[in-house]
C-alpha cells in the first residue's frame, strides 16, 4: 500500500470526490427538511426544494407591482453595478500604486507606510464615516468596496513586482530601457497575471463589503433583499438568493481564471521563471 500522500485521484475519481460532499450536504438538508415538515407542515426554517423553486420562480420571473420590476434581476443588476464599479476602481488603483511602489524605491518610501496604515483599518469600521461623508446612496457602497480591497491588492502587487529578480531589471537597463520602458515592458506584463489572481482573491471580501453595505442602507440589491425577507423568516427566498450569489461568484472566478490563462500563458506553464 502506498502512502496516503502519494495517492492521487484520476479524472473520474476527482469528479466523484468533489461531488460527494456537495451531494451529501444536499441529501442531509433534504432529510432534515422532510423530517421537519412531517412534524410541522408550516415549517419555515427548512423549506422544501419545491417551496424554494416556487419562490425563485416568483422572484426571477414576476414583476413586482410595487416597483414595476422583476426583483431578482433588479437586485442583481444593482449589486453587480456596485461590485463592478468598486472592483474596477480598486483594480486600476492597485495597478498604478502597486507598480509604483514595487518598482520605485522613492514611491515605496513615500507611499508604503500610508498603504500599510490603511490596510490595518477594518473597512466595516469605516462604513459609518462613508455614510456620513457620501450619504446613503451608491457612492458610499462603492467606496466601501474600494477601501476594503484596494490596500490588499496594492500590497500584493507591490510585493510581486518587488520580487522580480534584480537581474531582470538590470538586464533591461543594459539593453537601454528607461524607467518608463521597464515599467511598461518588464513590470506591467508580469504584474497582470498577478493582478488578476489578486482580483480573484478579492472577490470574496468585495461581496462581503457589498452585502454589508446593502444590508445597512439600501432599497435594492441582493444583500438588501436577503436582509429584508429575513424579517419574515423567508428562508425559501434567502436560500435561492444565496445560491444565486454563489453561482455569480463562481462564474466571475472562472471568467478571470480563463482570461488569465488565455492572455498570459507563460504565467501558467508548469515551469515559470
Amino acid at each position: 500500500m502506498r502512502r496516503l500522500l502519494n495517492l492521487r485521484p484520476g479524472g473520474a475519481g476527482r469528479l466523484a470526490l468533489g461531488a460527494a460532499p456537495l451531494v451529501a450536504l444536499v441529501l442531509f438538508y433534504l432529510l432534515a427538511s422532510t423530517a421537519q415538515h412531517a412534524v410541522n407542515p408550516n415549517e419555515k426554517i427548512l423549506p422544501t426544494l419545491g417551496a424554494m423553486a416556487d419562490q425563485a420562480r416568483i422572484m426571477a420571473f414576476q414583476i413586482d407591482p410595487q416597483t414595476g420590476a422583476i426583483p431578482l434581476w433588479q437586485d442583481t443588476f444593482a449589486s453587480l453595478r456596485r461590485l463592478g464599479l468598486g472592483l474596477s476602481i480598486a483594480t486600476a488603483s492597485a495597478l498604478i500604486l502597486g507598480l509604483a511602489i514595487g518598482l520605485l524605491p522613492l514611491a515605496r518610501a513615500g507611499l508604503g507606510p500610508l498603504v500599510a496604515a490603511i490596510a490595518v483599518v477594518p473597512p466595516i469600521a469605516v462604513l459609518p464615516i462613508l455614510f456620513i461623508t457620501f450619504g446613503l446612496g451608491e457612492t458610499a457602497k462603492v467606496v466601501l468596496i474600494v477601501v476594503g480591497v484596494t490596500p490588499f491588492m496594492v500590497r500584493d502587487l507591490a510585493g510581486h513586482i518587488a520580487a522580480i529578480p534584480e537581474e531582470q531589471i538590470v538586464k533591461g537597463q543594459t539593453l537601454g530601457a528607461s524607467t518608463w520602458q521597464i515599467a511598461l515592458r518588464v513590470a506591467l506584463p508580469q504584474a497582470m497575471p498577478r493582478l488578476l489572481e489578486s482580483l480573484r482573491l478579492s472577490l470574496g471580501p468585495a461581496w462581503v463589503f457589498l452585502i454589508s453595505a446593502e444590508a445597512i442602507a439600501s432599497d435594492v440589491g441582493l444583500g438588501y433583499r436577503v436582509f429584508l425577507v429575513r424579517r419574515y423568516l423567508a428562508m425559501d427566498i434567502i436560500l435561492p438568493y444565496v445560491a444565486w450569489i454563489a453561482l455569480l461568484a463562481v462564474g466571475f472566478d472562472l471568467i478571470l481564471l480563463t482570461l488569465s490563462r488565455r492572455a498570459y500563458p507563460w504565467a501558467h506553464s508548469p515551469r515559470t521563471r
Partner: protein
Amino acid sequence: MSALLTFRNVWVEYGDKIVLEKVDLAIEAGAFVSIVGPSGAGKSTFLRLALGQEAPTRGAIDLDGAPLRAEPDRDRGVVFQRYSVFPHLNAVENVMFGLECQSAALTGRLWGARRRDALDQAVAMLGAVGLAGALEVYPAQLSGGMQQRLAIAQALIMRPRVLLLDEPFGALDPGVRLDMHGLILGLWREHQLTILMVTHDIKEAFKLGTRVLAFDKRRNDPHAPHRYGSTAVYDFPLLDKPGA
C-alpha cells in the same frame, strides 16, 4: 592597444567592512578577462562596479577615457547565471527588446517596417547562438543552456562596449558547458568583443581568457578579517591565445 576600461585606486567599503581595496587595472579592448577567486573575495562586487550597479567608495572607473556612469546602461551588456531573460517574452521578443526600447521611447514597441527590420536582426542573432529553431518559445520551456544562449543573444544585439558575464555557465551540465565555451569564444572573435567573466571554475578561466585575474585578500588580520579588502593579487596575461 589602449585601455578601454580602467580602474584607478578603486575601493569599495560597506561601513567599516572593506570589500575591495586599491584595485588598479587597465583592461584593453578585445580582451577576454576571466576573474577567479574564493567566495567572498569581491569578484561579484568587481563586476557590479563595471556594470555600474554599484559605485566605488573611493577611486575612479573610466570607460574609454570618460568616467563610467554609476548606473547600468547600453555600454555594458550582461549575462547573469540565472534570471537574465524576461519570462513573459518569447525568444525572439526577448532579443528584440533592446532594439524596441532604443527606437520607441514612449511605447517600447515597434510596428510595421521597423518591426520587421528588428525582427530580422533578432532572428539572425538567434541563429548565431544556435536558437534558430526556438524563435517563439518562452524561456520556461528552454533548457538552462538554451536560456543562456538566449541571454547572450539578447545582450549582443545591442553591441555593448563591454560584455559582463557573471558565472554564466555555473548552473550548466559539463557537456553543455563545453558547447557554450565554443559558442562564446566564437562570438568573441567574430564580434571583437571585450569580455569580463567571473567564474568559479579555474580551468574554464584559463581556457577562455586572454587574461586571468585572481581576486583575494593581500593581507589578513585574523582578529578583524573585515578590515582588509580584496584586490587582483594575480594577473596572468595569456598572450599566446589565438585572437588575443
